[in-house]
């Protein structure tokens, strides 16, 4: 059974890049443009096995999304990865405090991405 991954980023380029990497590895991908859209999907009953979210986004950023997603019933234990850049150490720490499992550093190549996913997602 292929795992569901939700990707959240306000950059369509980033979404496209992530989607193609993930789909090539056999994941089912759902994309959202910001935190609000992501939360709406989650509240609508969509239950991904993993969430990968950008930090800086309009409407609702990644940090807030992580906190809000964790509070949803089915999302208590779901792995969440924050997409950060090299310089965002403080954001990573904050993401972790908000409940993120880990982070990815942009730009990400497909191999690294799959490596990290394998690490946080059992049964891949």
């Amino acid at each position, binding site marked *: 059974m292929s795992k569901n991954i939700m990707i959240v980023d*306000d*950059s*369509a*380029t*980033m979404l*496209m*890049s992530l989607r*193609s990497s993930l789909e090539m590895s056999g994941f089912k991908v759902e994309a959202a*443009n910001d935190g*609000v*859209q992501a939360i*709406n999907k989650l509240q609508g009953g969509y239950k991904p096995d993993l969430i990968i979210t950008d930090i*800086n*986004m*309009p*409407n*609702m*950023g990644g*940090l*807030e999304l992580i906190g809000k997603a*964790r509070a949803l019933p089915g999302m*208590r*234990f*779901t*792995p*969440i990865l924050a997409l950060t*850049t090299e*310089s965002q150490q*403080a*954001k990573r*720490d*904050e993401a*972790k405090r908000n*409940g*993120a*499992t*880990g*982070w990815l550093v*942009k*730009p990400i190549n497909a191999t690294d991405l799959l490596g990290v996913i*394998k*690490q*946080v997602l*059992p049964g891949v």
Partner: protein
Amino acid sequence: MNALLQQFLQESREALESIGSTLLAMEREPGDHSRLGELFRLVHTLKGNSGLFDFPALTAVLHAAEDVMDAVRNDALGFSQPLADQLLDAADYVSAFLDAVESQGTPGADFQVPPRKLVEGLRSWLATPALEGANSGVALVSTQNSRLPVDLPSAVRDLLIDAINAERTAFLLDYQPAADCFFQGTDPLHQVRQLPDVLWRRIRPLEAWLPAAEIDAYACNLRFEILLLASEESLAEHFRYVADQATWWPITLASLQSVDESVDTASGSDLAGFEPLALDILSTQYQALSACSQEPWPSGQHVAIVTTLERVLASQDDVTAMAAFQDCREQSNRQNDAKPLLSWLSGAMEKAIADDTPSTGPVTTPVQGELGGRPIACQALALGVAPDQADTITPRRADETASQAPAKVLKVEQEKIDRLMNLIGEIVVAKNGLPYLAERAEEQYGQRELAREIKAQYAVVNRIAEDLQDAIMQVRMMPVSFILQRFPRLVRDITRKLDKKVNLILEGEDTEADKAMIEALADPLVHIVRNSLDHGLEAPAERLAAGKPETGTLRIRASQNADHVVISIEDDGRGIDPQKIKVKVAAKGLVEPAALEAMSDQELVNLVFLPGFSTAEQVSDLSGRGVGMDVVRSGIEKVGGHLRLASQVGQGTQLSLSLPLSMAVTQVMVIESGGQRFGIPMDQVMETVRLPDNAIHTIKHQPTAQLRGRTIPLKGLNQLLAVPLEQVRNEDDEYALMVLRSRSELVGLLIDDFYGSIDIILKPMVGILGELSGYSGTAVMGDGSILMILNPTELFA
């Protein structure tokens, strides 16, 4: 070009537009910090995306810009006009870079190397070097005895010895997941199962298990001890998300042999006997303190460090150390200097390490270098001293706060839409063949029933075709903001050059019109705005002298009016003086003096549209360029639009452009003249009448007719097209007359006969035919014949 690159280009251009407009907005309101976050986010996203491609020059520029914006956002750097200029330069560079990539697929030779001047210019804003590196050189690591389990099976021991002899590195790992780690999506067991080459493992509870009824399944109480062969880098990588929960020690042959040695901690040092974690924290605090020792005492960071030190010392139950620490703190407070505290901490740390080293025991002395089982400190570098960073989530724009979920948007290349459009056009044309077929079925083959069925079928196809047309029109609709968003930058640049002060107001940017219309608007609009800035709006001194505010106002407003989109451009400048126009036109001999004298002020103002007219004394490099308002007007009229000009001397000028929402489908009236059929755009047809021969009166060689109390000049189409035939009259000796509106004047066009109106897809004429004036294009009819579409305005000119 691959899809990802295309997407990148498109998104980057959008980001650039936003960056440009945000920068300008910030220049207008320098105190408004709400936009900083947005600006940073835009630059940041661009930079992140550029990293997906091999564009080192682009990334270098964006990286520098991002660092500058970060500094501005964190108040480390003030926002100023020179800085805005620099950032706009960077935006221009990025734009040129994207152009190169778009046209050639790669950046090309000009964009291989980062533009040194630009990058350095940006970086120069960040004059003070960052504090990073201050920690280097201070390598304080607490030492740790080998923790190899005593009860290691001998088989594992042998494996270890073999591996180490084969130059593999072995580590003992101690992973104690946080109690709440499950709620961060971590599965510690999965985590350790991913480790390579595990030789031995043990999983124990961190604290004794509670009775079953009191257990919390989701409070992690596990401790993993693992012996494995791995590189230190891979371990650090593997546990990077839980760096504070995992520790590892390298295993050497010597430490394997010394497993049985009992370990004592030397005493006598200030910090001897401290837990390794405490030593680590102290060492981190030492580094942090030395980094900020120059700051005036006590800074926020100093206070944080002192608090941390105090807590750590208190936790270690060492009265002597605590007392020494408190003494030094008092001293630092008295001297307002971090030095006393710093020197105590450094002395105590060094002593602790010196004391600790021999404790690894005599057996290990020969290989001391690789001994001492150095624990790899994973604690974050500055525990407790990282200043809380303000959240950078972009402030919402008021118009974005509407909580409804945004519509899904699919971005499609224009060529695809155009193709669809053409295909739909063909359907429209093809379906027009059905009535002919029905006619033939009935008249040629006497199949009345079949003809009726074909007609019924036609009605269905017709409806679908209309819906299709409507749908594709909707797809092609785009907001006027697409062209309006370039104006803030344009206005800023021009006014700077002219030393004028102008406040640009944009309204109704979300008004939509067909893409082709929007594009047709772009050039004329730029020209109009340039004109207004150049000739309309006065310099500040002149404005003040005229009793007006120093800063002029230029307002561009878009709105929708039935099936037209109206763009009005208004300024509060000096206006157009009809008398000056009159003098100039007379001097240039563009209009006969007698006609000029008879003109109203409004008519005089409209003369600016005359070819060869230019209001400015000299053609400036801004609005000049040899293009006059006549070109603007014909550009607008070419796509079926109208242009209206009004002006009050000393008060300002208003120009309004009215364009059809869509130009894809045109309704024309089919007429016949000189044995040929033509189409005339319906929106110019005021009415069609039958005119008796005797109703035509010739005034000054000009045939006219009285219609509803107005005298209308008459022209014969044959005559206009140089066809040597009389217009045909019907049995009752009546002419077929069409009253047309041409530039707000009514003209009567005499033809041979009218037919019905039809919808056509207008195809502009190309090649030699394109130069023919009097025609706006052609259309293919249902029977395959070509219909020439007339352009009455040009015809009457």
